[in-house]
């Protein structure tokens, strides 16, 4: 078993938190993990990505080869498309629909959504609104993680445990909010798929 996941977004949108949940859950499940991330210049509002690889065998490369990603989870719709060359045929796309517009030539939204919808296996989710309605707009990333959960090589339990571990320091309320966000994401994905 080997699962390759690309996380995408704009610097500061919290993709490393998604990565940390995946890492923690994988390590607790006794799986091997490699997770590369971007530090430095591009963290200032630029495009950022993280490659997460989980396997029961030895993992060599820190970078996922092109055409080998099982899924891309993106916190921003245009950033999702930037990494398409990495996606496997019929791989899964999960993205928030809300654009982060900090450039003057941001593409037309409709066209962007249409492009995403041409891929058979895509989940477009209004994660930000969901997170807000749960009273924690910062949890947008966790909603998206929840939406992808069914297709991850990690048990639901291990993911929930990882969320608890990671947010523990911030207090019980934040833990609860993030678990809610995660579960809501799961639900929405089920609705869309069925």
């Amino acid at each position, binding site marked *: 078993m080997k699962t390759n996941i690309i996380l995408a977004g704009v610097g500061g949108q919290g993709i490393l938190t998604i990565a940390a949940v995946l890492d923690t859950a994988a390590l607790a499940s006794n799986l091997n993990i490699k997770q*590369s991330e971007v530090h430095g210049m591009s963290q200032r*509002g630029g495009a950022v990505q993280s490659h997460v690889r989980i396997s029961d065998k030895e993992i060599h*490369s820190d970078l996922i080869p092109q055409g080998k990603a099982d899924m891309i989870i993106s916190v921003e719709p*245009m950033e999702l498309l930037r990494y398409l060359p990495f996606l496997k045929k019929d791989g899964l796309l999960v993205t928030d629909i809300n654009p982060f517009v900090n*450039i003057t030539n941001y593409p037309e939204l409709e066209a962007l959504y249409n492009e995403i919808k041409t891929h058979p296996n895509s989940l477009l989710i209004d994660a930000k609104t969901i997170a807000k309605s749960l009273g924690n707009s910062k949890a947008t990333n966790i909603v998206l993680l929840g939406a992808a959960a069914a297709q991850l090589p990690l048990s639901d339990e291990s993911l929930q445990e990882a969320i608890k571990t990671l947010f523990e320091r911030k207090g019980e309320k934040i833990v609860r909010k993030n678990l809610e966000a995660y579960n809501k994401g799961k639900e929405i994905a089920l609705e869309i798929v069925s």
Partner: protein
Amino acid sequence: MKKLLLGNEALAQAAIDAGISGVYAYPGTPSTEITEYIQKSKTAKTLNIHSQWSVNEKTAMEAALGMSYAGKRVLTVMKHVGLNVAADVFMNMAVSGINGGLVVVVADDPSMHSSQNEQDSRNYGRFAMIPILEPSNQQETYNITRYAFHLSEQMGLPVMVRMVTRLSHSRAGIETSKGELQNNIHLPKNPHQFQLIPMHARNRYQHLVDIQSDTRESSENSYFNTFIDGPNTSMGIIASGIAYNYLMENFDDGDCPFPILKISQYPLPKKQVKKLFDTCKKILVLEDGSPFIEELVADYFSENKKVIGRLTGHLNRVGELNPDNISEALGFEVKHFTEMPKIVTGRPPELCVGCAHRDLFEAVNQLSKENSNQQVFGDIGCYALGVLPPYESINTLIDMGASITMAKGASDAGIHPSVAIIGDSTFTHSGMTGLLEAVIENSPITVIISDNSAIAMTGAQDSSASGRLIDICKGLGVDENHLKLINPLHKNLDKNIDLIRNEINHKGVSVVIAQRPCVQLPKEKKDKLKNLKKVSLN
């Protein structure tokens, strides 16, 4: 359970476990997390390991050498271009040798994710004639760093560990092993070892040359250099550091048919290289960075075409390696993947909303509009983004400190206005000496120090300049009538433009300190800054 660590963190943990008494470093992507890990480590605190940031890489490496002189183990860390700054001590401490184990970590940045160039530090290691270690993965980073201290003490030489961005910034589960105790203070046995006057230096240099056979032998017997046999000798592969992983990624279960020489310790293990050459028809060299090994092993005119790699166009000459370009070099069919849709546009980094550099650039741009002769010499930091739209305020960006000295040279050549923009940390790193030079000649330049009280670009570390800039400038001899403080806020724009214009018109050195903290600083730091000594300007 294994610890989930970045390559950088694995290195830092290994240094703590190896019994270092200190780390000396100046931040720089991709090396920064090494020192930060030690700063945050409870164990390091209990063990009283020195970890405060240095003012620049040269001061860092010299302090490290001082700790080694005292007999203790020590780590010094920098990004690749930082080694240029520390090159003087680096080259000379190879000649003096060390006392307590001294490991120099240099993090290279192939593809220039956050740098001005992609220089390959292995060239420096070879130049200085010291052993170089180049780990291929996170666990090996831990193991090799532990080993580095032993090797350093065994050879009596500083040892370089070369990291690259992708290894520094990728996590994996790491197993650590039992820690060693710190060394006691013990001075060098030979009282002349560190006295590099010519008569002693000649002896030391001869010694360095003489032990080259030992360093090579150590490489040939190293656990980290492995020869992996393979049935298909139509090609042999030399893969160094992280390139080894990208290579293995291309074979299911790591089942590569070609013989492989995996290299993680230099000087090159001649014996194994010869074995590969003797048994294989062709040699493919895979290395992230410059064609360092390839140049050493290729025949000069490439007439026998035996060695292929970056020099022969089988791999990209610039930019980092990855599993895909290595797949092509292996001769695998080039696959065509979905292209990035045309609708996707670039998203370059930008200054944060509310950043003080923004208000400064607005002022400077207004003055550039008023006088099209104005040239603005920039420097390294968040404000380097002033090169890009929407500001496009800066004409040059070369190396840390070059803003002031280039402004002076351009002014000597007759350019006026000649303006330098430099960050507070860059100023104490390498700007002060240049300012002194300008003061001595009273060059008509305007130096703007954009003081956000942080080393912001690399993650808001404390700046050595905080609370000291005015005293430093006065001490360097800047005329107090032309040493000004402004607050770069939008509401002060007109006032600030007037003030800078006046200083530009002054026929001598002016320094304008534009002071407002980086908006990304955590609250504790902002509060701390408020309590710093405020020096009045009167």
